[in-house]
C-alpha cells in the first residue's frame, strides 16, 4: 500500500484523492458456477422473501392475534400457560426428577447443560469432519435434544383444549349497538334513567347495563315503576304513553344486540 509523502487527500480529510479500482474478492477456489451476489443472487433471495411475505400476511389476516381479558390477579381459576416456544421448559418441570426437591435439576442443570452445550458446541465437537456421519456423538446429542423438545412441547400442548381456552378467556363482550337518539323513547330514557344507567344504556357504578338484558316490554315497564334489586320503586316519572315509548325503545336496542 502506498504510504507517506506524496499521498493526495481530498481537502484536509483522510479520504484518498486517487480512486483505486475495487477488486472483488476472489472466490475461484469454490468449485462450480459462482454467481454475483448483487443483483443475481439477491434477486433470488428476495423472490423467496416476497413469497414468504405473502404467506405471512395471509396468516396474519386469517388469524387475528389473540387478546384475552384484562389481567386480573384475583382470577384464581386461571391456568397459566407460556408461549408455545417455552412449553417444553414448562412441561419439563412437571416431572418428578425436575420438581419438588429436585427443582434445581429442572430449572438449572438440564437447561444449563442443554443450552450450555449448544453455546459451546464448536469446542465440544472438535474433530475436523463436517459431515454428520463423521461426528456421531454430536449429531446424536442434537437429535436427542430436538426430539425431547418436540416431544415435551407435544405432551404439554396435547393436554390443552385450545379452543375451549380461547373461548373462556375472551375479553368481555362489548356489544356494539347503535342507539337511535332521536327515538322518542330515548328522550324519556334521558329524563329518567341516564343518571344511573348511562347515556348509552351502558350502566355504571350503581346500575347494570341495559344492553343484553332479556325482558319483555311489559317487564321493563314494571321494573321502571316498581324497581328491582337495588333499584328503588318510583324512579320513573312520566305519563303512561312515555312509559310505553321507553319500554319499546329498550326492547328495540336489545333486539339489535342479539
Amino acid at each position, binding site marked *: 500500500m502506498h504510504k507517506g509523502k506524496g499521498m493526495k487527500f481530498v481537502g484536509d480529510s483522510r479520504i484518498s484523492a486517487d480512486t483505486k479500482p475495487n477488486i*472483488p474478492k476472489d*472466490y475461484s477456489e469454490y468449485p462450480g458456477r459462482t454467481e454475483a451476489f448483487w443483483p443475481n443472487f439477491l434477486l433470488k433471495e428476495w423472490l423467496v422473501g416476497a413469497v414468504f411475505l405473502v404467506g405471512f400476511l395471509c396468516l396474519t389476516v386469517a388469524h387475528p392475534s389473540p387478546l384475552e381479558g384484562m389481567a386480573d390477579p384475583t382470577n384464581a381459576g*386461571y391456568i397459566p400457560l407460556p408461549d408455545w416456544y417455552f412449553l417444553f421448559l414448562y412441561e419439563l418441570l412437571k416431572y418428578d426428577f425436575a420438581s419438588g426437591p429436585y427443582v434445581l435439576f429442572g430449572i438449572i442443570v438440564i437447561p444449563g447443560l442443554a443450552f450450555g452445550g449448544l453455546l459451546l458446541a464448536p469446542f465440544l465437537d472438535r474433530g475436523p469432519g463436517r459431515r454428520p456421519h463423521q461426528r456421531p456423538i454430536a449429531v446424536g446429542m442434537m437429535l436427542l435434544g430436538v426430539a425431547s423438545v418436540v416431544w415435551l412441547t407435544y405432551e404439554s400442548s396435547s393436554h390443552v383444549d385450545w379452543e375451549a381456552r380461547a373461548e373462556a378467556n375472551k375479553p368481555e363482550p362489548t356489544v356494539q349497538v347503535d342507539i337511535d337518539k332521536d327515538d322518542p323513547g330515548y328522550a324519556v330514557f334521558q329524563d329518567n334513567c341516564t343518571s344511573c344507567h348511562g347515556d348509552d344504556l351502558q350502566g355504571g357504578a350503581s346500575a347494570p347495563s341495559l344492553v343484553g338484558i332479556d325482558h319483555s316490554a311489559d317487564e321493563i315497564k314494571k321494573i321502571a315503576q316498581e324497581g328491582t334489586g337495588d333499584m328503588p320503586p318510583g324512579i320513573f316519572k312520566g305519563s303512561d304513553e312515555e312509559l310505553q315509548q321507553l319500554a319499546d325503545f329498550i326492547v328495540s336496542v336489545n333486539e339489535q344486540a342479539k
Partner: protein
Amino acid sequence: MLQKMYDWIDERVDITPLWRDIADHEVPEHVNPAHHFSAFVYCFGGLTFFVTVIQILSGMFLTMYYVPDIENAWKSVYYLQTEVAHGQIVRGMHHWGASVVIVMLFLHTLRVFFQGAYKKPRELNWMVGVLLFFCMLGLGFTGYLLPWDNKAYFATQVGLDIAGQVPFIGDWIKTLLAGDVSIVGAQTLTRFFAIHVFFLPGALFALMAVHFLLIRKQGISGPL
C-alpha cells in the same frame, strides 16, 4: 443527476468500498437453489433476518398506540385491535412474527449444526448466533407480558417464580426483573417494556452486526 450526486458524495466520503464490500462478491454454487434445489436450506438465515426487520418495524409502529401502564396497557391494545384501521394486522404481524422468527431461527440453527458449519474457523460466529437465539427468547418472554391480559400476567408470574427458585441469587434476579419481591404489577410492566423495547433490541443489533461482519469476513462455509 443521480450519478453526479453519487460522485459528489463519493469524492468526500469515499463510499464505494463500503457498498462494494456488501454487494460485490460472488456466491458459490452450493448455496444457490437455482443449481441445487436442496440449497433452499440456506434461506433460513436470510428469512430470520427478514422477519426480524418486520418485527422491528411493526414494533416501532405499535408503540404509537401502546402505553406500558397497568391501567391502560390492555385498553390501549384493545383499542388498537378493535378501533384503529389495520391495527389488528400490524399487531398480528408482530404477534405471529414472534413465533415465525423462533421457527426460522430453529431451522437455521439446525442447518448450521448438521452441516458442521460451526467448525474452525467459525466457532465465534456460532456462539454469537446462539446468543442471538437467547436474545430472541428473551424478547419473546418480555413481549408476552406487554398486552397485560390474563395469559400474559399468569405466564409471567410462573416465569418469575422459576427465576426466583435459582439458588442464592433467585430473589435478587426476580426483584430485578419484576421491580418488587412479590408483586407482579406496575413496575414489572415498565421494566419488561424497557427490556423488550430498548435493552434486548440493543443487544440484538450489536450481535447481528457482529454475526454479519463475521460472515462477510470469513465467507460462507464450503460444500460438504
